[in-house]
């Protein structure tokens, strides 16, 4: 079994703090990490390898320092890693990123599964996984919470997807792109052997020249239909929380409920809905079933 895992290096947002005065991010000294969702993707690939034997290849597109993320993946147990790094890849939006990754996957070749995190925590789009699947012309299984079954002989996979209303069980063919949620597993920590190996392993850097056949015009900024035209910090909230204090918990609770009742949105949406039996109760939102 050959699984290719796509990972992204992102700033560690647990280290990011907000300057309370300006509302801007304090990024100084913020370390870079593997996108958290991607660690679950790596773990899932490693578990599949343990079950079926085979290998795990990790790919990342990014600046030269993204090599650190790949070394970490090797330390976790991945067999090999490839860094896609070239000025021609820079400034890519999700369409161009997916294109470049798909071209690399095509070149690596001979895979059963491509596994990605469901989204990156810096961009939060979740669009690259579907993009890769479409470029490769294979099925996509997104927001996967569990891989139920992989049948390499019959080229079949069954997964559980977490959707808003519950859990959807989907059967599909292989190869496929799977994007994973964080409830799929518990990623392992690198062990000593892995760390030693990760230090010595050679990580090839593929530039646009290596991806022969790839259209440079579809990579990087040139291949990106979207343009960021403005970036701003949302204004911090000025008002402070009203802290409700009273002699007893009951009184404080009563006071808080009183305050919430004074909030129009709560009165209408929350209370209104629950008071429908009262003839003069205010209706909540648009009345779906009431003809004019």
């Amino acid at each position, binding site marked *: 079994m050959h699984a290719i895992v796509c990972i992204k290096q992102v700033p560690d*947002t647990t280290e990011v703090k907000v300057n309370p005065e300006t509302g801007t991010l304090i990024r100084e000294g913020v370390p870079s990490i593997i996108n958290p969702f991607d660690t679950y993707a790596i773990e899932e690939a490693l578990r599949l390898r343990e079950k079926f034997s085979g290998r795990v290849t990790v790919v990342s597109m990014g600046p*030269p*320092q993204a090599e650190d993320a790949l070394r970490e993946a090797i330390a976790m147990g991945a067999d090999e890693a490839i860094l896609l790094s070239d000025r021609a890849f820079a400034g890519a939006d999700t369409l161009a990123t997916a294109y470049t990754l798909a071209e690399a996957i095509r070149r690596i070749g001979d895979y059963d599964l491509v596994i990605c995190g469901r989204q990156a925590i810096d961009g939060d789009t979740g669009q690259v996984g579907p993009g890769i699947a479409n470029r490769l012309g294979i099925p996509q299984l997104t927001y996967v*919470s569990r891989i139920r079954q992989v049948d390499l002989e019959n080229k079949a996979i069954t997964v559980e997807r977490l959707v808003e209303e519950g859990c959807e069980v989907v059967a599909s063919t292989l190869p496929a792109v799977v994007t994973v949620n964080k409830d799929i597993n518990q990623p392992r920590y690198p062990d000593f052997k892995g760390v030693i190996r990760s230090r010595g392993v050679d990580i090839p850097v593929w530039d646009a020249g290596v991806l022969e056949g790839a259209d440079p015009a579809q990579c990087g900024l040139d291949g990106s239909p979207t343009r960021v035209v403005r970036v701003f910090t949302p204004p911090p909230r000025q008002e402070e929380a009203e802290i409700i204090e009273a002699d007893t918990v009951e009184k404080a609770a009563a006071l808080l409920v009183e305050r919430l009742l004074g909030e129009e949105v709560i009165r209408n949406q929350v209370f209104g809905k629950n008071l429908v039996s009262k003839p003069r109760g205010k209706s909540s939102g648009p009345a779906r079933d009431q003809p004019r």
Partner: protein
Amino acid sequence: MALLEINRDECTGCAACVEVCPFGSLRLDDEDIAVVDETCTACGACLPECPVEALSLPPPPARGGEGGVEEVDLSAYQGVWFWVEQFQGQAGSISWEMAGKGRELADALGTTLTACVLGQGVEHVAQEAICYGADRVLLVDDPTLSVYRTDPYAAVLVDLVQRYKPEVFILGASTRGRDLAGSVATKLRTGLTADCTELTIDPETRLLRQTRPAFGGNIMATILCPHHRPQMATVRHRVFEMPQMDTSRQGQLVRHRPIMGEGEIASKVVDFIVQEGQVNLADAQVIVAGGRGVGGPEGFAPIRELAEVLGGAVGASRSTVDAGWIPYAHQVGQTGRTVRPDLYVACGISGAIQHLAGMKTASCIVAINTDPEAPIFQVAHYGIVGDLFQVVPALAQQFRQRLHK
């Protein structure tokens, strides 16, 4: 890989760019001149800040021609579209929120609003779409579309877009909407902006200005798709107002056939499991959430009780999910769900930045925590400093009385 060019002769070392860079990619060097490192994403945030115009990015590729971008006749694309997400014949509220926003965009452009309704036995949903503001509904009603599957749904939408050529196409940022939009936009080779919280039409260029949170909501970015059509975006739940339903509205219903036959579809939905107490956090008007302060799985009992009294859903912080006290489906925050209820009651949640990213845009936030210094109080509208095991049951009791339950 940095694409940003800095003219060292012009730079005055004022550091205005260093301060605004969302990625911390800029700094001043030994000579007090701005330098950029490899983490630059070419987002352009710094450009307008430079007082001497010392910063530049490569120009976007000209429309058509160079850069291999296919020639697109932009004027051939007209109309605003939205996808009506339905589950078991019931349209989600996000669909009608989009109908309201789509109507606004169509009016601003002086064009029509079209709804795409896919499913089986969903003609009533098509009628609803008209009542909520659509001028036209493209209806594809077929057994192969009875449950959502990426490939047959994407194939239909791609075909319809290629036939009718809309200029704007919006979908909900739900799991299905994001799954589908990512597929359709890639097939159409057009731009897609995820999770928009604001959509407007630029009156001069008629382009769709798509604003979205990034970096856990700490920065906002406005994005354009200047040379590709349709301009595609997914929109967040509960951000745009639900329009009034008007049953007297008339609209056109156009039927189309599916593109893929069952034999061509690689995937099958073999089962659907609704867990007990399953919650749809995205649609919830009220969320009562528990954090580390609940102390263990049984600590969610008062949280559940209050949620039930309020007809709301149960949310959870990451640490409680990681500890195995409650399933992941409940997790609110950066690695869980982003929610925007009318009322969010945070119980025993300290308010880590990742949690705040997922809930700070709720209309009204109540924080209950023993630690008065907890960051959750910084985003809360109301707070009670106290033990959730006393406060939450007392609140449930008070609400029960008010609600005559």
